[in-house]
């Protein structure tokens, strides 16, 4: 059970305090309610580029990193399709430095032309490093475009194409900031060796006078239900054929999400899971296979992806997967198989909670979803899933008309 206290500043900033006196450190985690899904389709990659610019100096503090490092702190940030998260770990004595730095960049950035110019280049190199130079590196760009026709999940966080980043203008950067990076659109978690009183004082002192901003009303185009099976073939200079299949699944708040998470563990949660045992070990059709899902807030995708053993045809490989999915649709999994993936989930949650940083990020995420307290009900939700749920969900999920397939073929 993770204990915490919550209060809201008059400007709308939600603050959560989670005390853990066993550590000498403090963590500050600020999550902004903006991700790649909030981007203009002609300006993709912007939320992530923006995250880089958050380190380019703020209105009163020309350099963000130096004073933090001087105080013995470390920080980083990440952007997803759903949100942008910034976090600091710092010796608890120097917590106020984190308040000073984070509040100043929430107040306003410096908006320097040089920073924009450099970070554009850095992000372009990041794009190349992660998506252009890796074999199969473009597959998720292609899969998102295949599976999503309307919802902004149809592009990746890094962006649809390099040109969107190359042409980003300072004016757009400013607009984006004042639209999304306001107290009313953020959640701050302060955790570790801290007290509620001190966090209250510091929050009022440093964040209290930042203008609230306008609450962002998210109004995204919803993805219409898929009604025909979709397939695509890619030929590229890769050594092995690979198969990717995705099915639409509900978002983070749906009960089905929990069923599907356990279901995906049954299929590929470890070396004793079904797909691995049947297709890698027994039939030896795949050299590697896995099943996972996007974990996204809005309706996401469940993925099965694998690399084929040389000489195996796509038809054989797909048929073997279908056979495994048919079993899921026609027979109840055993109670002990379900118990296995529940046990795994229990221990995974316990290991995640080892780190104050991870607890802080979870609290922020659940608060963004609706209520930080939901974090404490996760295990219960997984626990309530039955073998009948898994059966019904498999029938619902693994329908051909719900499926998107990419054959990624080696052309040598």
């Amino acid at each position, binding site marked *: 059970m993770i204990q915490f206290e919550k209060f809201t500043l008059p400007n709308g900033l939600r603050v959560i305090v989670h005390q853990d006196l066993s550590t000498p450190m403090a963590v500050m985690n600020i999550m902004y309610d903006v991700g790649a899904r909030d981007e203009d389709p002609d300006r993709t990659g912007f939320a992530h580029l923006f995250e880089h610019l958050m380190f380019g100096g703020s209105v009163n503090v020309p350099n963000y*990193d130096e004073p933090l*490092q001087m105080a013995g702190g*470390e920080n980083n940030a990440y952007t997803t399709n759903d949100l942008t998260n910034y976090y600091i770990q710092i010796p608890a004595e120097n917590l106020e430095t984190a308040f000073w730095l984070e509040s100043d960049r929430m107040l306003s950035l410096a908006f320097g032309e040089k920073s924009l110019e450099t970070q554009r280049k*850095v992000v372009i190199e990041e794009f190349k490093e992660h998506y252009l130079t890796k074999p199969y590196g473009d597959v998720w760009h292609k899969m998102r475009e295949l599976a999503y026709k309307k919802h902004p999940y149809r592009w990746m966080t890094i962006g649809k194409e390099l040109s969107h980043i190359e042409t980003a203008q300072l004016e757009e950067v400013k607009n984006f900031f004042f639209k999304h990076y306001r107290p009313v659109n953020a959640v701050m978690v302060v955790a570790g060796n801290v007290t509620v009183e001190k966090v209250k004082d510091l929050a009022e002192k440093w964040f209290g006078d930042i203008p609230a901003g306008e609450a962002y009303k998210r109004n995204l185009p919803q993805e219409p239900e898929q009604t025909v099976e979709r397939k695509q073939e890619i030929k590229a200079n890769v050594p092995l054929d690979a198969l990717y299949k995705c099915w639409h699944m509900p978002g983070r708040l749906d009960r089905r999400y929990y069923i599907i998470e356990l279901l995906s563990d049954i299929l590929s949660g470890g070396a004793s899971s079904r797909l691995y045992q049947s297709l890698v070990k027994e039939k030896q059709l795949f*050299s590697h296979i896995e099943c996972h899902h996007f974990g996204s807030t809005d309706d996401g995708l469940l993925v099965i992806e694998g690399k084929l053993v040389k000489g195996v045809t796509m038809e054989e490989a797909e048929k073997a997967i279908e056979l495994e999915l048919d079993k899921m649709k026609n027979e109840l999994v055993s109670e002990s198989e379900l118990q296995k993936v529940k046990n795994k989930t229990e221990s995974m949650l316990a290991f995640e909670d080892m780190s104050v940083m991870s607890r802080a990020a979870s609290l922020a995420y659940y608060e963004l979803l609706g209520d930080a307290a939901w974090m404490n009900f996760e295990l219960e939700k997984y626990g309530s899933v039955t073998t009948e749920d898994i059966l019904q969900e498999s029938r619902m999920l693994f329908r051909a008309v719900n499926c998107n397939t990419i054959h990624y073929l080696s052309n040598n």
Partner: protein
Amino acid sequence: MPDRKQAPEIVDAVHFDLKLKPADKFILDNGVEVYAVNAGAEEVMSLEWVFFAGNWHEEQNLVAATTNFLLRNGTSKKTAFQINDHFEYYGSYLNRACHSETATITLHCLTKQIKELLPAVRELITDSVMPQDELDIYKQNMKQRLKVSLKKNDFVAGRLIDVYLYGENHPYGKFSKEEDFDALDRGQLLDFYKRYYQEGKLVLFVAGKLPADIGILLNQYFGDIPFTTVENKKIIVGPTAEKKFRITNDPDGVQGSIRIARPFPNRHHPDFMKVQVLNVLFGGFFGSRLMSNIREDKGYTYGIHSHLQNHMHDSAWLISTEAGKDVCEATIAEVYKEMKELRDELVDEEELLLVRNYMMGGLLGDLDGPFHIIARWKNIVLHNLTEQYFYDSINTIKTISAQEIQQLAQQYLKPEDFYELVVI
């Protein structure tokens, strides 16, 4: 209204009095050493069985790694599936890894499940049979994986730079080829298993919320196995004479993998700790000289880092980055420029204090929780160091002077000593 131009007061991390929580040490009946850190709030624990069974000890390429990999793929009583099903049913994570000198089995689990799991680990250590069909599947899949990896410039660069530094026949320099997989023979694996696991040398590291009878349990399951000792034979490095390499791997590539490295002694050398500080300043953190110049000013790369390799014998100092194809040579020139600056000019006290505080703050965070603490102890034990090493490093961070740093730069950051590689 706070004065936002003014940084809040800080306690310089350099003044922190850091303590490494002691590890309990005990000896099993057969002489196996156990190091234990009992701490943490969550009901979880980790156990690591460290064998001296790394590729340092093999006669033929890949024998050590393959033996380690197949440990959980079958015993005389259980199939691979049954073994994995058992560990997974109890919500535990069983992993294994093969390094240069050592090879390990690690188990992460809920403390309440430990009694179900220890007998199963014992079975892996005493009764693995490395079935032929498991070996065949492994060979096939690893060869396929290798084909994919070889398409990646960073993978190719990582292999080649170690060959230049240590030689292709040295454990730190050798790498897997398709024919090495083909040549693997089950008999060799079983011999290696017998010598380096069943009768090998074991050290155990456990951490987390430990059961009160952990010593008794470990002795019950591992205290009667006839472990012996393993000598670390001497192997001489054979670096290449040529120092500069430009390799084409992917003609359509948009980035080059750059590696710049020089040989450097291991942790027992008196300069090692001091150079750790110089390394942080040079390329060891986000605010480093290399990062500030080459990423934050020039935008040539998403990241550039330098580090001292953590080898037990010979070691090296390595700079690595992935940079735009057109700016690879410019990146290398800037790296040398930063070396020159460190040789020619004293680092100012403000920047040095920042590095000290950053390192101390990082250490404080790194000592947080039982798994971090046991990792420190493991490093101390396996590198044949003492607890004092930890306190000496802190003292070095606190007291090293700008003059010393400059001298070290003059001694070790000379371009002519460095191997240089770009893989495009």
